[in-house]
């Protein structure tokens, strides 16, 4: 609520407030450099806002825009590492997501040798594998082929149906039709957007 943030003298967010309801897939759109990633970093706890507060209902799943992996570890080792981090009993959820995203075949490959799209699949899997209540996804389909892109949106629909709150940052206007609610971030201010240019 009322989030402000500046990088040195450059004001990026000027009092942003938003409420993400349960069982919805919402989006934040805006031009490059509008502050979308900064907003998500603040919502996820990665960055401290200069002013304002953030409230969450439950566990957060955050998929950062820049893929955050360890190039020395295999996909399997990533899953094992995050299984401990999330204190999960098993990897069933991760296996389902990997099947959906066609990632299972790379289990024993090191992250450093994966293609950009495959790395992004792993990046997304790590954000979803603990079945969080709130999902903050920063351009989560970068590098995906068309089929995987479609499957990502199917996955987002299932999450909505399961009562999860999903916030997707995008600069693609044509994603808007898949979203229940769209906010436009411009000049540091977030406004509801009802009609998008085709």
């Amino acid at each position, binding site marked *: 609520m009322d989030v402000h943030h500046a990088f040195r003298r450059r004001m990026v967010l000027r009092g942003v407030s938003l409420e993400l309801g349960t069982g919805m897939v919402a989006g934040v759109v805006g031009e490059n450099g509008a502050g979308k990633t900064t907003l998500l970093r603040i919502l996820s706890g*990665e960055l401290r806002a200069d002013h304002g507060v953030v409230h969450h209902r439950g566990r957060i799943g955050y998929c950062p825009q820049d893929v955050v992996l360890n190039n*020395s570890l295999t996909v399997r080792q990533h899953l094992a590492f995050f299984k401990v981090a999330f204190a999960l009993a098993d990897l069933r959820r991760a296996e389902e997501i990997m099947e959906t995203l066609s990632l299972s075949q790379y289990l024993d490959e090191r992250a450093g040798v994966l293609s950009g799209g495959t790395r992004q699949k792993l990046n997304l899997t790590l954000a979803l594998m603990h079945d969080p209540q709130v999902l903050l996804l920063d351009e989560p389909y970068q590098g995906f082929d068309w089929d995987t892109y479609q499957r990502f949106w199917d996955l987002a629909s299932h999450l909505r149906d399961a009562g999860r709150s999903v916030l997707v940052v995008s600069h693609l206007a044509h994603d808007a039709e898949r979203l229940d609610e769209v906010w436009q971030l411009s000049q540091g201010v977030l406004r509801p957007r009802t009609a998008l240019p085709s």
Partner: protein
Amino acid sequence: MRLHLRWFTTATRYALVEHGHNRLAMVLIALYVPAWVTLAHLSVSPAPVRFRLWETGQLLVHRGNDLTQISGALNAVCLITGFMMFAATFASGTFDRRLAMAGYSRTYLALAKLASLAIAAAGVASYATAAIRATTTLQQPLLVAAALFCAAMTYGALGVTLASLLDREVEGMFAIAMISVVDIVLQNPVISSNSGNSIVLYLPAFGAVQAASAGAFSTTAPLHCLGVQFLWFTAAALMALFAFHRRTRNALPPTAVADVPTS
């Protein structure tokens, strides 16, 4: 308790996997360490050189090439462990943060780095001691290995700190190399016959140089010097922990999350 053990063993295992994939470091250990100490033995003059043992006041007189081997081995282990820890910490900076934000204990992530550093430092120090023994008889090889280990631990912790403070990989490499060169070269008795006095007392590897030289060529055991080196390691490790803690903190206050499942 089991959870704590799992945090520690998992993070340590993967920290070691990461070190194992640092091929340059592995090559440097395999080739650079024995090449350095062998070349020092062959190319430096064997003329007697004086070296003051600070703790006992004893003036050690020994062949210059043998004393330079000790300096060379210290330089090599400091550079390699500093580089290994810098590279690993720099590369996994955002990944560590992601793990911490996912719920991984930051204490155990840091302890795992320390454990992986200790294992790497023990391996490199033992190997370097064996490389010296191939050409030179050491009076107290265990003390030499302990001194090399303490120096490696200190530079490993410095590597972690630098990786948290600097923005580019090349900056860290230069910083470690320059600190190490000033530190070790100023204490080399061939260059500075007065080493053991004045400014060298405050150099990061002073304790290790003293302990390793005494262990190599005398029967005295300057445990105080090892203690000084341990203090340097402790200070470097505290700086590293502080930097790691700052870098991996979650900006959301605990009260921001109202409904966190406990399982």
